[in-house]
């Protein structure tokens, strides 16, 4: 199989304009004849559904929560990047493009990233017009702050709740279309399979999470905006419901999965405090703007932080990376935190923590200024740990946060299944091997507002789709498979709960496919995952029936998919014999302990094709050419 990213030829600055001109359009009167399914109502899904509805298409939007406003995009804290250069500090579309390609450690597609930077300016305009209450200067203009991996202030924010406000803007636009009758919303409805007829995506099989009813929904195109798969690690900053199911089932139907081992570990999360812990809480990267990260200089120094004088403190990021200091990209910050804790210099009861100290910032700017910038984040920290970050330094430790991997898509955000589009964190594009802070919000809205509404139109205008109805054998087959899986999970009635399997799986992947990986460790992991998966299908206990509200049954299906994904992640990590971004193979590092890429042999996207359980997946490589940003050893010194 050959992958064709369909990147327009010619200079990169004109590529998107050229593509838009060359795309076929759907006549305004014909738009209402087309039906489109959007799965997921986060930033990417809600913005896509709303925009398609505004254009006049008939849209059905699905989410498993009780309301589209619950999508996990709501929890994003720090901000959204855009190349407006309002701060007059040297920013530009080209610089945002450059920073993102470099931050991704030269493993992303240049054309996609340039377009993302180009569109970023329109996103801010749209959000402001919708009433997103971005922070302002006294004169009434938008204000900015800086974020990791950048030396300019290009991040727009709404206190520490930017994701919430952006999502509410998209959610409100979506509800406006619901009222207008162009979008039908199906909350509490989970997609459990993709319907593919004559190689084209034609609909989905869903389960109603209240009644248990299994249903089919048919359409001319399907868009998946179902978020990331960080919950494969059990403990992550994701919401409890976040899962890989929608894209995994699409993968099993033929959509290639790209770079699954590119997972991002966020350096500043509240450390784990016990076995019952259900998730890890993120402390926004924006805190690194003003906080200083340090650990005691000497191993075993257990003094309280205010008793440790300056000379006994190691501000290790400032020491190792003078020009970026505390604002090095996430993978660099996370690995460094792991190193100092492995050396025995970690803080807190478990020794797995480092300090993020605001004492200097409070002294320099005053408490009120810090409250204005981070108010809700400080409160959140105090509520959870019972410690006051205005008085003692915050304790933080890295945690799984984002997944750069996802379904492979071309320049038009279409997967390898014609008619199946993938947007937001669910796709693999744009962030390479490491995502910069404040760029996920940017990518989700770019995909949903400004890309997929055009590219879906082009697909619809250039593909004549036969009418299908529910009697088609592909549909009856897909429904039967879903019903069988549900019944199987309920019938096992073993001795272990779904959560107990999930926790164990999470520990295996964290240990062997987390912050640092080795060939031996990955091979161990694959064996352990297979064994655990076999035990799961013999010994899991899912109480209740399939005919009513059953949260254990929901979890059971999602965990079943996580086993298979986990294996693919390890296979991918094993195949990539280099270190880049969030994928760190201990066998491939520089003398200073930084990631060592092998551009000669690994400058490609690893896209995997499903060959049935137990069979090795197919690897298809998309070579990456860097014409504009020349690969160099990433240095933040």
């Amino acid at each position, binding site marked *: 199989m050959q992958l064709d990213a369909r990147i327009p030829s010619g200079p990169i600055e004109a590529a998107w304009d050229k593509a838009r001109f060359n795309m076929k359009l759907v006549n305004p009167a014909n738009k209402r004849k087309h039906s489109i399914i959007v799965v997921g109502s986060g930033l990417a899904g809600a913005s896509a559904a709303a925009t398609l509805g505004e254009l006049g298409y008939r849209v059905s939007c699905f989410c498993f929560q009780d*309301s589209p*406003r619950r999508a*996990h995009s709501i929890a994003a804290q720090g901000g959204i990047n855009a190349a407006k250069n309002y701060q007059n500090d040297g920013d530009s579309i080209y610089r945002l493009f450059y920073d993102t390609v470099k931050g991704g450690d030269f493993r992303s597609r240049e054309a996609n990233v340039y377009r993302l930077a180009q569109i970023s300016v329109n996103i801010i305009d*749209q959000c402001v017009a919708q009433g997103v209450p971005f922070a302002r200067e006294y004169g009434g203009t938008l204000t900015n702050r800086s974020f990791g991996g950048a030396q300019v202030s290009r991040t727009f924010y709404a206190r520490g709740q930017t994701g919430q406000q952006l999502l509410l803007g998209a959610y*409100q636009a979506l*509800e406006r279309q619901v009222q207008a009758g162009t979008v039908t919303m199906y909350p509490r409805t989970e997609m459990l399979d993709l319907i593919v007829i004559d190689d084209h995506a034609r609909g989905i099989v869903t389960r109603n999470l209240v009644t248990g009813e299994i249903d089919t929904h048919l359409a001319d195109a399907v868009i998946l905006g179902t978020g990331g798969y960080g919950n494969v690690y059990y403990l992550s900053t994701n919401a409890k419901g976040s899962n890989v199911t929608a894209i995994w089932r699409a993968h099993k139907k033929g959509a290639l999965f790209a770079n699954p081992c590119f997972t991002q570990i966020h350096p500043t999360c509240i450390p784990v405090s016990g076995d*019952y812990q259900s998730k890890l809480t993120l402390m926004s990267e924006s805190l690194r703007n003003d906080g200083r990260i340090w650990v005691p200089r000497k191993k075993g120094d257990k003094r309280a932080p205010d008793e440790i004088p300056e000379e006994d403190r190691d501000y290790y990021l400032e020491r190792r990376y003078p020009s970026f200091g505390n604002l090095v990209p996430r993978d660099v910050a996370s690995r460094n935190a792991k190193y100092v804790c492995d050396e025995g210099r970690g803080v807190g009861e478990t020794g797995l923590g480092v300090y993020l100290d605001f004492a200097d910032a409070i002294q320099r700017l005053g408490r009120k200024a810090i409250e204005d910038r981070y108010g809700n984040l400080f409160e959140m920290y105090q509520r959870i740990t019972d410690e006051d970050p205005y008085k003692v330094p915050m304790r933080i430790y890295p945690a799984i946060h984002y997944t750069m991997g996802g379904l492979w898509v071309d320049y038009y955000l279409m997967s390898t299944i014609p008619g199946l589009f993938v947007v937001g964190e669910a796709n693999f594009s744009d962030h390479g091997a490491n995502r910069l802070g404040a760029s996920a919000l940017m990518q989700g809205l770019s995909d949903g507002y*400004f890309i997929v509404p055009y590219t879906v139109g082009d697909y619809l205008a250039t593909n004549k789709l036969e009418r299908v109805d529910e009697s088609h054998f592909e549909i009856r087959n897909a429904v039967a498979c879903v019903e069988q899986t549900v019944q199987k999970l309920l019938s096992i009635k073993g001795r272990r709960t779904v959560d*107990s399997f999930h926790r164990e799986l999470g520990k295996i992947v964290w240990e062997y496919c987390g912050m640092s990986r080795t060939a031996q460790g990955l091979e161990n992991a694959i064996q352990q995952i297979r064994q655990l998966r076999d035990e799961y299908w013999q010994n899991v206990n899912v109480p209740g029936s399939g005919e009513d509200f059953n949260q254990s049954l929901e979890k059971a299906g999602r965990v079943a998919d996580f086993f298979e994904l986990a294996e693919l992640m390890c296979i991918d990590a094993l195949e990539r014999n280099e270190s880049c971004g969030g994928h760190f193979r201990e066998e491939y590092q520089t003398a200073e302990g930084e990631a060592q890429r092998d551009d000669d042999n690994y400058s490609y996207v690893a896209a995997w094709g499903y060959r049935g359980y137990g069979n090795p997946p197919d690897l298809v490589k998309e070579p990456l050419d860097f014409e504009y940003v020349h690969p160099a050893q990433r240095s933040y010194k």
Partner: protein
Amino acid sequence: MTYSVDNVNSDMSMLECLDVLNEQLIENGDDPVAFEHDCREGICGSCGFMINGIAHGPLPATTVCQLTMRHFRDGQELVLEPWRAKAFPLIKDLVVDRRSFDRIIAAGGYISVSTGSAPDGNAILVPKESADRAMDAAACIGCGACVAACPNASAALFTGAKIAHLGILPQGKPERDIRAIRMVTQMNAEGFGGCTNIGECTGVCPKEIPLEVIAAMNRDYFRGSWRERDNVVTTLRPFTEWSTGSKLKVDPHSGN
């Protein structure tokens, strides 16, 4: 149903405590307790139930997912109840149907600007104080605690918060009157009670939405009804049916 949970760690959250209970129940072959949750960090608004009669429990400005067990005593009995309101039909155990909130937003809780038609972000100047006040109102997470705590089961704080957020900003001014009329009409049609200025809502609100947003809503509704008195919209019927089939009962004589 009464359950006992042993060895509760004081750093555990209320929901983690329920997780532990549910694992026990499943292991004993019993049905787990159904409760809604997602982000576990107080921002999605999924979670929420009464603990000993107080929405989200005893700690102010805190959702149940953020409430740690250190605020309770060893041996204490906690009575958990779902949000009780006619407009929030019960689904199971602690899970209720809050689609009435989505319908209120669909009635007018937005600014009508289609994708692509926006001016430059800095073309609309927003005074810092307005942006801050709008953000205070926009912080509502849509959890429904306000409705549950109110003896009248009024949704005034929720509806007021969105009306205030959008009404303060210059972008929201063109539709300010219509928005208030439509959202209040929908709110009433859903079966929420009326607001009699009790104030329980703001007391339990995890985001401390101020009571003033209700005043903003009332003012916009009153002024809007006057200004739009000749406009057919004041006699507009609210939605009687929702896309996924749940039908509202609307009384044509209710004076909306």
